[in-house]
């Protein structure tokens, strides 16, 4: 492809942070009307590069050429004016405001008195939403939308800027198959209108389904660019990781003991009703369903974050009253929450602090004071085993890449050695290489007789790891199925959409 015909060219870009060389002389070429995947392990530098392109940060050196013009001034505003728009890895909508206010934030249409023209805003929003085929009232508050819908609104916003290049950094990490399909329809439609898309994801199926070409980075360096269809999976993984790895770690079979946790007719005022299930020692119980099915709310209610409306929870056959996370932790439960930013990380604090805060009880010395040595030893052990990429454990966690933050949180909860471990999307945003390692650690915990309850939107993950799978649809448990080898994704999806009868008929 000749240089002039490229919409975007990144040439020899370097980006340094204190103690970290995030990008080392990387390149990237994006043609008009193509969907271009950017792949690499956690911390490879993908987000860093696209943030430079979108003007959120400036590269240390190197050139970024857009529509044949060198970009010299790096601000988000300039990038938007040029026609570059980005959908962030971590969404940050103004949740208390409406869809239309979010879309036109900072460039509200004004009437002749210089006041915000809400009518025009409403009309323009309707047009944009129609363009991406989304039926929502522009006045709906963001907080009432599902994550998937918020994601669509972000895309609508990008469209509203009439962007030539739309960057999507892990847009599907919070979505399930159905919503992903909807997203893909929009993305393809945008491409057919001649727009270019840079697409970042750790889900390999998506890369094959939607992208035209793939560029791979490893450790901040450029490895190569290939046509997606010409690149076999193992080769792609090899380019990313530098060695061969299995995509998923199959659960090691282990003996399943007596019932540990029993939930009877648990209901929540809004999110779900009458859910019953049991989970045994040594068992991994998967929870599947579409986004909004009430999976997260179910486990958060068991954990005491939400208040239950009715129902009982039994541990080891004895009824327990759990009205706060504190009670849950006393009952030896642990929960890896789905939302990394609001209820997960302590952004300004160190990686070490973030890893160990839930396990402080383990680090006391003889006089009941915390031992810095013990803390250091344990966190170092986990850093190694799940490959957290950080210059040192004193680094503030907010400077880690998204996937590496997730790894730290996984470490936090694995470290607590709970009897019952709830995992909500544990491998969200984690690269293929480490995913298998985390699956192995989870399996190992089950092998020690712990009970694991795992919510995941990735069916291959649920089906690869679980002994049994609870499927939810719109707040109702539609089925609990044994994970036998003949179980298919279609069967699970039928439960998830509550259309089992059509399926079997």
């Amino acid at each position: 492809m000749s240089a002039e015909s490229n919409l975007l060219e990144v040439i020899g870009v370097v980006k340094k942070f204190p103690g970290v060389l995030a990008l080392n002389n990387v390149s990237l070429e994006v043609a008009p009307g193509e969907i271009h995947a950017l792949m690499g392990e956690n911390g490879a530098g993908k987000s860093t590069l696209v943030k430079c392109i979108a003007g959120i940060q400036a590269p240390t050196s190197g050139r970024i050429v857009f529509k044949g013009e060198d970009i010299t001034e790096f601000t988000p505003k300039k990038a938007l004016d040029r026609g570059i728009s980005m959908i962030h890895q971590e969404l940050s909508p103004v949740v208390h405001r409406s869809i239309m206010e979010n879309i036109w934030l900072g460039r509200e249409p004004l009437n002749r008195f210089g006041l915000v023209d809400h009518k025009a805003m409403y009309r323009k929003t309707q047009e944009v939403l129609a363009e991406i085929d989304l039926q929502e009232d522009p006045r709906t508050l963001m907080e009432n939308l599902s994550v998937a819908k918020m994601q669509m609104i972000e895309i609508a916003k990008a469209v509203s800027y009439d962007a030539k290049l739309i960057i999507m950094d892990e847009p599907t990490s919070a979505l399930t198959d159905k919503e992903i399909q909807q997203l893909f329809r929009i993305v393809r439609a945008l491409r057919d209108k001649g727009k270019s898309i840079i697409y970042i994801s750790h889900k390999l199926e998506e890369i094959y389904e939607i992208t035209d070409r793939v560029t791979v980075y490893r450790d901040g360096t450029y490895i190569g660019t290939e046509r997606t269809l010409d690149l076999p999976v193992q080769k792609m993984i090899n380019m990313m990781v530098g060695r061969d790895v299995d995509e998923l770690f199959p659960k090691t079979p282990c003996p399943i003991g007596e019932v540990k946790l029993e939930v009877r007719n648990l209901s929540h005022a809004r999110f779900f009703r009458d859910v019953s299930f049991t989970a045994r020692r040594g068992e991994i119980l998967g929870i599947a369903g579409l986004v909004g099915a009430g999976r997260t709310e179910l486990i958060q209610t068991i954990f005491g974050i939400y208040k239950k409306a009715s129902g009982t929870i039994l541990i080891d056959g004895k009824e327990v009253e759990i009205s706060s996370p504190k009670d849950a932790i006393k009952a030896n439960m642990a929960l890896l929450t789905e939302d990394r930013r609001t209820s997960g990380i302590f952004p300004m604090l160190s990686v070490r602090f973030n890893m160990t805060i839930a396990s402080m009880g383990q680090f006391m010395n003889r006089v009941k004071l915390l031992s810095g040595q013990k803390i250091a030893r344990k966190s170092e052990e986990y850093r190694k085993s799940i490959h957290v990429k950080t210059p040192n454990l004193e680094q503030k966690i907010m400077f880690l890449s998204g996937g590496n933050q997730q790894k730290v949180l996984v470490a936090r909860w694995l470290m607590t050695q709970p009897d019952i471990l709830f995992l909500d999307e544990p491998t969200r945003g984690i690269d293929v290489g480490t995913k298998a390692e985390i699956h192995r650690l989870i399996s190992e915990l089950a092998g020690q007789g712990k009970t694991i309850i795992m919510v995941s939107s990735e069916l291959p993950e649920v089906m690869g790891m679980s002994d049994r799978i609870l499927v939810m649809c719109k707040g109702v448990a539609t089925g609990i199925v044994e994970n036998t080898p003949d179980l298919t994704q279609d069967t699970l999806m039928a439960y998830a959409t509550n259309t089992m009868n059509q399926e079997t008929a």
Partner: protein
Amino acid sequence: MVSAGIIKTEWVKEKLKKYGIVVVLFLMIVGLTLAEPNFIRRTNIFNILTQASIFGIMALGLTFVIISKGIDLSVGSILAFAGVVAASLAQSPLATNKYYPNLGELPLLIPILVALLIGLSCGAVSGFFIAKTKIPAFIATLGMMTIARGFALIYTNGRPISNLESMTVIGGRVFGVIPIPILVYAGAIVLSWILLNNTKFGKNVYAIGGNATAAEVSGVDVDKNLIMIYAYSGLMAGLAAVVFAGRVGSVHPGAAQMYELTAIAATTIGGTSHSGGIGTIWGAFVGALVLAVMRNGFTLLGIDAYWQQVTEGAIIIVAVIIDMRKNARKD
């Protein structure tokens, strides 16, 4: 790979950012010594540390509060309230206007414990309201500031309590050399340091300020810890009251007005961030020293006390600007 040279300059920059305030303190000391050689004499150094001790001790408690993303405006008033009650129990038997005319001489420990207990309780009450009713700390402690001052006035009927023979021992020196307030301050620093760095409570303080929701999910009893944080701040105010009574030899119900602001300033200058989750005891100490050195230096140089105020204000603002640049680099 990055060359060692670049890493080195980055390292220097990083350290400068981190220890910038120590450099400032050092420059102040050098400058003042050059301008006035008496500045560096032992007696003057002891003077500075003694002066720093009262608001310095309060700044220790405030460090916990501010790291947890709170604020405590009540410590000055708590000092006055705890101070007058302790003073009333420490008057010499021969004093003329005794608060309790028939009270004999009590062991020194009693007024001290009473001061600490009053401080602790006032703080715990603020903490209780902050934790249970979720009212902003600013409001709760503003209320406590007025209430504690009110109690101090009611208790004394607006009159100072003096002739504190037994308590003035605390204002004295060990071996006739080291002023006791400095030792009390040092003890409070060590205690606070251990609490903040080596106990679960300390880690919880950081967690609550860093992300309260995440703290809750991580099993931190946020309410209980909030109460403990404000109780500790109150306790430090009570301890400051003891030092105050010892040094001054009498306590006025209007004493220590605005001390809370000096203590907040010391904490802030020392790099404790009002956005929560960041701060050190060491910083609170350095911050208190910066203020004390400045006040002392201005007096030595004969600079107008009013200008002193203006400069103090400017320093606080500059310190916070530096602090924000250091911490808020999230892209």
